[in-house]
């Protein structure tokens, strides 16, 4: 009985010291959970910014309304992403800090009419004219494009850049048995495709056409499916190359339909980013990968028009642009309808004040308050044409 207390105390001590690392691990996990959530949100906001700017400065050299197509400026996407990731971790977006962020972004892909995947390149050291140690990729470029070896713009040791932009190409034969190549797209509602027929042009050159109906077995859904498959293959291959020493990270696939778990499909143009080993604010690198996509959807413009009935009644309406044949209306083929303007969204169309409407009497017009709260001059507003919009 005399030795019972020491033994019990010893056992309690052992239990206590066994639980200490467990508690430390618990605390660490709670901190990691916060940092993980922070990384997810930072990534989401950065990708959103990159996509926004990539589209705003996109390389659009064709009629977007006809092809219903978008294109990213890959350089702007990468630069904006790096800047916002730096801002999200309270860093000034210098070249060094941007590269720091990009080095932790193991893969980024941009997909629209084709796709591009980031690559990381390491340069060899060299000693510049002023004795600075640098690498060829970090050399200073003069405005005329020549390299000044005596100055160094960055010496981070590596450079992340977007690889070659690869268009989605689907190969098949047309009705005449000739080989044709169709340039695909991730957009599901594409109504026109670029088709290349080798040796069918003048002088044996390739014949490039914009077609609305696809030849042979090629269907719009097949074009989209194969485009996604090509991007998946390239992305998975790059993923394997990065992780060839770590078999724990397995295959990555982009779902092309909603999965049982509710994962959204990758079926529209967008930017996908994969971050791994992020250890800027944590005691150990975050092991889990954050995967964020940003989807681009086609904007439905709003057409505002004035309709005069045979009895002379005047109405101001708005409807979606694709619900009214604007070309015919502009050519005067719809009697009594005059197209006034095309607005980017419904809100803008509804808030426009038609000040010079002489058709309505004053008591039928609105007098909305101005910025100072005083009633403004009588005016009209465009109203939704429900008969058209509800179609």
């Amino acid at each position, binding site marked *: 009985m*005399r030795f019972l*207390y*020491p033994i*019990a*105390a010893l056992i*309690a*001590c052992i*239990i*206590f010291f066994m*639980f200490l690392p467990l*508690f*430390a691990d*618990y*605390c660490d996990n*709670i*901190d990691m*959970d*916060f940092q993980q*959530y*922070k990384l997810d*949100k*930072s990534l989401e*906001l*950065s990708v*959103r*910014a990159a996509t*926004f*700017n990539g589209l*705003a*400065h996109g390389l659009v050299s064709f009629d977007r309304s006809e092809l219903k197509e978008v294109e990213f*400026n890959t*350089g*702007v996407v990468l*630069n*904006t992403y790096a*800047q*916002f990731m730096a*801002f*999200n*971790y*309270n860093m*000034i*977006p210098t070249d060094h800090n941007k590269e720091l962020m990009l080095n932790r972004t193991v893969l980024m892909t941009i997909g629209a009419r084709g796709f591009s995947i980031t690559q990381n390149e390491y340069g060899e050291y060299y000693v510049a004219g002023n004795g600075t140690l640098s690498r060829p990729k970090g050399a200073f470029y003069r*405005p*005329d*494009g020549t390299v000044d070896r005596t100055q160094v713009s960055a010496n981070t040791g590596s450079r992340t850049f977007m690889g070659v932009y690869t268009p989605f190409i689907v190969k098949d034969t047309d009705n005449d048995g000739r080989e044709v190549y169709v340039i695909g797209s991730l957009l599901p509602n594409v109504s026109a495709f670029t088709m290349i027929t080798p040796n069918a042009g003048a002088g044996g050159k390739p014949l490039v056409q914009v077609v609305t109906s696809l030849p042979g077995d090629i269907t719009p859904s097949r074009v989209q499916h194969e485009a996604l498959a090509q991007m998946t293959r390239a992305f998975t291959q790059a993923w394997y190359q990065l992780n060839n020493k770590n078999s724990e990270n397995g295959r990555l696939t982009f779902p092309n339909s909603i999965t049982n778990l509710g994962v959204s499909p990758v079926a529209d143009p967008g930017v996908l980013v994969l971050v791994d080993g992020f250890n800027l*604010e944590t005691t150990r690198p975050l092991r889990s990968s954050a995967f964020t996509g940003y989807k681009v959807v086609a904007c439905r413009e709003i057409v505002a028009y004035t309709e005069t009935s045979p009895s002379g009644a005047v109405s101001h309406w708005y409807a979606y642009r694709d619900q009214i044949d604007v070309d015919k209306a502009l050519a005067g083929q719809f009697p009594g309808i005059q197209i006034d303007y095309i607005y980017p969204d419904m809100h803008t169309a509804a808030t426009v004040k038609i000040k010079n409407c002489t058709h309505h009497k004053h008591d039928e017009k609105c007098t909305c308050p101005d910025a100072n709260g005083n009633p403004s001059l009588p005016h009209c507003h465009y109203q939704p044409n429900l008969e058209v919009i509800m179609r």
Partner: protein
Amino acid sequence: MVDTISKILSIVLIFLMLVLAPLLISYKIDDAVARREILFEVTQFIDKVRDTQSVTDTDLDQFYQNCNSHGLTVDVRVRRLVKTVVIDPHTEEVTVEYTINDDPAALYNFNKGDGVQVVVEEIGISPSRSFMYRVLGADSGPLKFTLAGIVG
């Protein structure tokens, strides 16, 4: 003598395991929830600015209040990131750069494509928390994080 030491040790261990440990775990959970709530407030604020492209004094006051209503005392700074576009005349390469504008008046003039950055920093750390953070390591230190998003 051995009995007395054993009894004292047992009482200390009982206190540690039955009183202090649950308190510490409860504190950690409360702290984690507060941190997550503040992060959520910041995310909501950035989303709001993105959608409305404007910030009013009422928005800012409400945001400061919301951030400080989760048990932690935090200093919140909102900055505008001004977007500029430069095109290289030789290569026609487009470069988009963001510059931080610390002036509070700049917050009322967001342009589409500008950015908004929120810096959150915990202030007024109690001595007991400092002790837990610096000596015991059971605290994750003062909360400090930044989030930035695009407007438009």
